[in-house]
């Protein structure tokens, strides 16, 4: 009987468990809540030293082969690292770096990309041998050396030193910038693909970005569940813990169920993409689900926490704000509806 069912498992594989533990230990040591507060207040930042550290861990080329400077992990193995990253709340540019690097098959150096999809920022064009235009909401543009972006009908790597960076502070802690290129000579960019190849490569980067941001969101949801559990158990109202009241228990149960569903749908969607690069369908559905679960989660957790949850001295906001960002990046609901309908039928 075991033989029949050996394949189906919802437990971490040995490799996943090891990766998860290593990532969790590293992140808990380097990015405790006190560090997140310091980043929030500006006392500390994610700088070149932090980038060097995650490069050393192989986190800038998780799914890239070792020969190309990566860690050679499967997508499901990379997923547990993003899950733990989300749980920690550390604002490290692992998702954009691996979306760009993963699509290109290049590990090692941080290549970033714009988070504003659906062409909302106008994009880059070539006129007279020079590149101009805007790329919106680029994560860690102050740390990365290179940007992966569509330039006309091509996909190209552009030196970030040539861009004007305008900070676009977000709801979460991650550094984010709008970039303007004004007349960068095309000789200074590296075209990696043209035409349909460029479109396919850009699509691959977009899919990876969805997958990685989704897993980060799922990890962050777990943290919100944990904070909520602790709060309703410890907080006394009318002489007993909040957790004793049925209305509160039901809200907490709804929160828990949403997060369980989001988590397993996310892993399953990522698995489908891993098994068949031509099947991102599960990913779109899982992201669609996670975005709506996030809406409900915000209501439930903040309702249960009351005023305490919105004070800056209680850490919940670090995770609910982080979740607002992670649920939206890597494809918002407008995009997921379009993709899911196109995919479903």
């Amino acid at each position, binding site marked *: *009987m075991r033989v*029949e*069912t*050996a*394949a*189906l*498992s*919802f*437990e*971490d*594989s040995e490799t*996943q468990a090891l990766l998860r533990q290593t990532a969790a230990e590293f992140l808990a040591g380097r990015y405790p809540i006190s560090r997140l507060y310091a980043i929030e207040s500006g006392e500390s930042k994610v700088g070149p030293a932090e980038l060097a550290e995650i490069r050393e861990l192989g986190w800038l080329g998780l799914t890239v082969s070792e020969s190309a400077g990566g860690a050679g992990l499967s997508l*499901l193995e990379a997923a547990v690292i993003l899950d733990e990253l989300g749980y920690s709340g550390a604002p490290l540019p692992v998702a954009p770096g691996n979306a760009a690097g993963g699509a290109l098959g290049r590990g090692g150096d941080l290549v970033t990309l714009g988070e504003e999809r659906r062409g909302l920022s106008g994009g880059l064009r070539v006129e007279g041998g020079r590149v101009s235009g805007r790329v919106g909401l680029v994560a860690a543009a102050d740390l990365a050396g290179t940007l992966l972006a569509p330039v006309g009908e091509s996909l190209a790597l552009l030196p970030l030193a040539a861009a004007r960076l305008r900070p676009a502070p977000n709801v979460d802690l991650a550094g984010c910038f709008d970039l303007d290129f004004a007349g960068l000579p095309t000789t200074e960019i590296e075209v990696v693909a043209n035409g349909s190849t460029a479109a396919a490569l850009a699509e691959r980067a977009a899919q990876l970005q969805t997958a990685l941001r989704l897993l980060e969101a799922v990890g962050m949801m777990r943290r919100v*569940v944990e904070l909520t*559990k602790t709060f*309703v*158990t410890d907080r006394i109202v009318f002489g007993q*813990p909040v*957790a*004793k009241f*049925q209305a509160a*228990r*039901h809200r*907490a*149960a*709804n929160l*828990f*169920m949403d997060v*369980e*569903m*989001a988590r*397993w*749908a996310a*892993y*399953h*969607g990522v*698995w489908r993409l891993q098994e068949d690069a031509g099947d991102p369908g*599960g990913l779109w*559905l*899982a992201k*669609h*689900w996670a975005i*709506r679960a996030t809406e409900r989660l915000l209501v439930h957790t903040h309702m249960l926490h009351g005023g305490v949850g919105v004070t800056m001295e209680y850490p919940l906001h670090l995770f609910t704000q982080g979740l607002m960002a992670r649920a939206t990046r890597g494809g918002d609901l407008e995009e*997921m*509806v379009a993709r*899911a*309908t196109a995919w*479903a*039928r």
Partner: protein
Amino acid sequence: VNFVVPREIVEFEAELNRYLDSVLSEEVLEEFRAHGIGRKVTRFWQRLGADGYLGLGWPVEYGGAGRSPLYLHAFHHVMGYRGLTIPLVTLETIARALMRIGSEEQKAKFLPRILRAEIEFAIGYTEPDAGTDLAALQTRAVRDGDHYVVNGQKIYTSAAHLADYLWLAVRTDPAAPKHRGISLLVTPIETPGVEVAPLPMMADHKTNIVFLRDLRIPLSGLIGEENKGWSYITTQLNYERVAISPVPIIERAYDNLCARLQEAGALAAKPFARAALAELAADLYALQVMDWKIAAMLADGRVPVHEASLLKVLSNELNVRCQSLAVQLLGPRSLVRRESESALLDPAGLTTERQLRRSVVNLFGGGSNDIQRDLVATFGLGLPR
């Protein structure tokens, strides 16, 4: 993790579908569509039993095939998608309880006949004043020599008008704390002292009130130990919760909606329908994954507790939303009953209106969803009770 569904399970589903295509006549299907139960349906179940499908998950020692719970999951999935009911309560709830706590004599008497679909049981747990708070039940059984004498009333006793046996929860020790004085008894339904009165329900569903007046049950009708009934009951409900998941019903509704709206040819021009279908597809996907997670747990020999409650709550609530949405997308024609020639039928020959009316039943059937939420809070999240 590894989400690969074993090949033999996929092949089994295909084989079962071919088998059903070959044995289901239009007459039988019509009875399924109209009533869900009846003589032809029973004969079909007997055929399923004879061909080895009813005992798929039963241990070999009781005449079953001893297959992994994944086969059972696939079986329920195929049957549910086709809108074919099975004698679930008897086959899984009652039989599993008998295997666990029945005497050798009771096992020998009932199990082979259950497997051949020759006998059916009705469960008499709920009472007018003991539903969600089942342990408040008042039906009394008093020992009188080598018999129990039972007096009381049961309600929502589904299938009592068709069943051969009545499976009762009764109070045998009124002095004990309420969870400790309950026992399980079984009796032929055709016994003096049992009166079955119909209680018609919405959605063409028939259930019953059962009056018990000086009903005499021999001591051999006691299931398990006296006064231990509560733990037996709660274990059974865990099995039922997993088995009544409406995931295949939602899948059929989704497929039907997609086909109908495509047929109408204007899906691209219907932004609401597109967005609604995307949302339904996403909700369904997350549920399907969770459904497999629970099947995988069972296959691994573990008992899903909060997982079963989660699936029960979310799948049944999604079913109500899904059927309601189907009505809004298909319009008022979807509310026409199947007796009418102009009724809109889904691939299983069922109307949306009936499925919508039916969907609300399992919000409380199999354990009220709000109680399930409490179980999730306790066992899933770990909140203090």
